[in-house]
């Protein structure tokens, strides 16, 4: 009857992503909710669908194929209002790899930034028209200050972060809200083989933090929360010292 979770149709962009899954798990969706998983990896999405025990539809979605995004969004919204859009698509590659393969850096920017912008703008138009809904954007603490060790990734996240903040302001008064999530180093599939940074977190913790942030209508969520303070310190470190950081 009464439900504390008001999300009945949820669209996850990057449907196979670990953080996306963990957010869904932490949300405690009502039993009649429908989840739309949009992603590339059919197998992983099918496995995720089984774990969810909710109605699940999968959509073929490639964040780098910007031309297809309008159609994907149309498909997702065709079944009714979408209450929550989680933008969790993203890739990471080591800076040393990208240095030797600029093309791959281009793909990273395309996936992490350009693709997000095209998809979210298409979704925003639909959300605006329906007059309600929430967008969750996964930024990163890397957006705060570019580091020598992964500045292309940092640049994409900085762009996405700025985009999300601007989007949130442009949506003021439209009934649509944006929740910006800035996790620190997340130990998971994407960062396999990397040594965890200080204040590292897990996809499950990010999921819980997003669910809590949604429940209290937050605008920005840091995971772990202490990163909010840490980020101030990051900004204040003098450049000559910052430059010497190896990671």
């Amino acid at each position: 009857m009464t439900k504390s979770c008001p999300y009945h149709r949820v669209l996850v962009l990057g449907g196979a992503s670990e953080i996306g899954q963990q957010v869904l798990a932490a949300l405690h969706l009502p039993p009649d909710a429908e989840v739309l998983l949009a992603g590339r990896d059919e197998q992983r999405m099918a496995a995720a669908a089984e774990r969810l025990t909710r109605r699940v539809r999968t959509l073929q979605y490639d964040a780098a194929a910007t031309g297809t995004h309008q159609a994907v969004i149309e498909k997702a919204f065709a079944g009714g209002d979408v209450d929550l859009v989680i933008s969790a698509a993203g890739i990471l590659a080591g800076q040393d790899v990208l240095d030797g393969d600029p093309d791959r850096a281009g793909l990273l920017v395309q996936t992490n930034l350009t693709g997000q912008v095209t998809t979210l703008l298409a979704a925003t138009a639909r959300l605006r028209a329906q007059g309600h809904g929430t967008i969750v954007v996964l930024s990163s603490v890397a957006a705060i200050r570019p580091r020598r060790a992964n500045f292309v990734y940092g640049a994409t996240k900085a762009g996405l972060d700025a985009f999300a903040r601007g989007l949130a302001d442009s949506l003021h008064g439209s009934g649509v809200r944006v929740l910006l999530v800035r996790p620190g180093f997340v130990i998971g599939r994407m960062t396999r083989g990397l040594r965890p940074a200080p204040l590292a977190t897990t996809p499950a913790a990010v999921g819980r933090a997003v669910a809590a942030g949604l429940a209290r209508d937050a605008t920005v969520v840091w995971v772990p929360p202490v990163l909010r303070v840490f980020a101030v310190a990051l900004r204040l470190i003098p450049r000559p010292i910052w430059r010497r950081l190896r990671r």
Partner: protein
Amino acid sequence: MDANQVLTGWGRTRPSRAIVSGPMDTCALQELVASRPARGVLARGAGRSYGDAAQNLDGHVVTPVTQPTVELDVAAGTVRASASATFAEVLAKAVPHGLILPVLPGTRHLTMGGAVAADVHGKNQHADGSIAAWIDEIELIDGTGALRTLTPDSDPEAFHATVGGMGLTGLILTVKIRMMTVRSAMIKVTSCRHADLDGLLAALDGTRERYSVAWVDTTASGRSLGRGIVDTGDHLAGPDPLREPDGLTYRPPHTRRAPAMPFCPVTPLWARWFNSLWFSQATSYRIAVTDLPTFYHRLDAVDGWNRAIGPRGLIQYQFVVPDGAENVIARALETVQRHRCAPFLGTLKRFGEASKGPLSFPMRGWSLAIDMPAGRPGLRHALAKLDYAVTAVGGRVYLAKDARLGRASFDVMYGPQTAWRAARARLDPDGVFQSDLGRRLGLCAG
């Protein structure tokens, strides 16, 4: 003047953009309604409803609807006020003649139109009913752009659908209200402190005075759960020679404006401290003579106090439960405490008979209003629990205060509303009058 503007309710929780215009003359209003804008038209009064009742996303919002006018008929004891006239304006004119509005809600800034749309009640609801009982006539523009005059006798269905109809049956232009005669504008108030909820309920139940209301310490727990102060009062039998030597007057005191806080200062600890202080500073029994604003409009002493709760805004949860369901009041207090919602203000009232409006809030029983900051993590869950507890005993929440009720809960609380929907279909066949609240609760399409 048309302008795209972001509007919020008093709680400042759900901003929505609309095309704002007004005041307009009757012809212009009729034209606007007859043009049937796609996202509808809504009248907005003072914007004092807490949630999204006076908002219309992407549609037209007319505020103020008309110029404020107050025509007093002293001999007949009635007032004809335009929809945008406020309670303060009506009282300022009427009180010197020994007349006051029979229903006075907690703020004098409400407009008459808004008061009718929400079927407001006052501290005398148990004795005199809500404002619906005192209205002789409503003039409104219906959904076809035609002028209609509604009275309780000529078209009772349309009349009762409009009183409490949250503005979804038409644009209210003027209201004619029967006034109450008083010999003095001063009120003799008896304040009595009670150490627990049982004492508070018994005191409210036992009072014979015209006005009664209780302040509840929303943060007290355990044995002190629901402790508070009961204020009862009535008008003096004759003018007070010391305080009103020149006859009756209505003079609101000068107010101070609250600062807009950049963060929410209200925490559970702060709420507890504030409420405990308020409780302990009160004497256990006190009789005083006060003026109207001090008794009725205590919160008006600070202008824009809602901005002091911080940028996330505030939620007021006001519900009524029938007699015999007093345990829900205790449960509500426990729930908001357990979920650390930082409830900072509680108001308990005894309600008498319901009015005939299908969407009217009052019903025989008990009403509790709890003010809380909107940004607390446990709030959503706590209120969902309260919705469940209130629906289970046949109670309901006040739409004028609501910003978050779900459609399923609303349907249980207020029923299928066939009478109201039929009346609205007759008054507004094309569904011109729309609001965010109406869309949220399925009262209007779109």
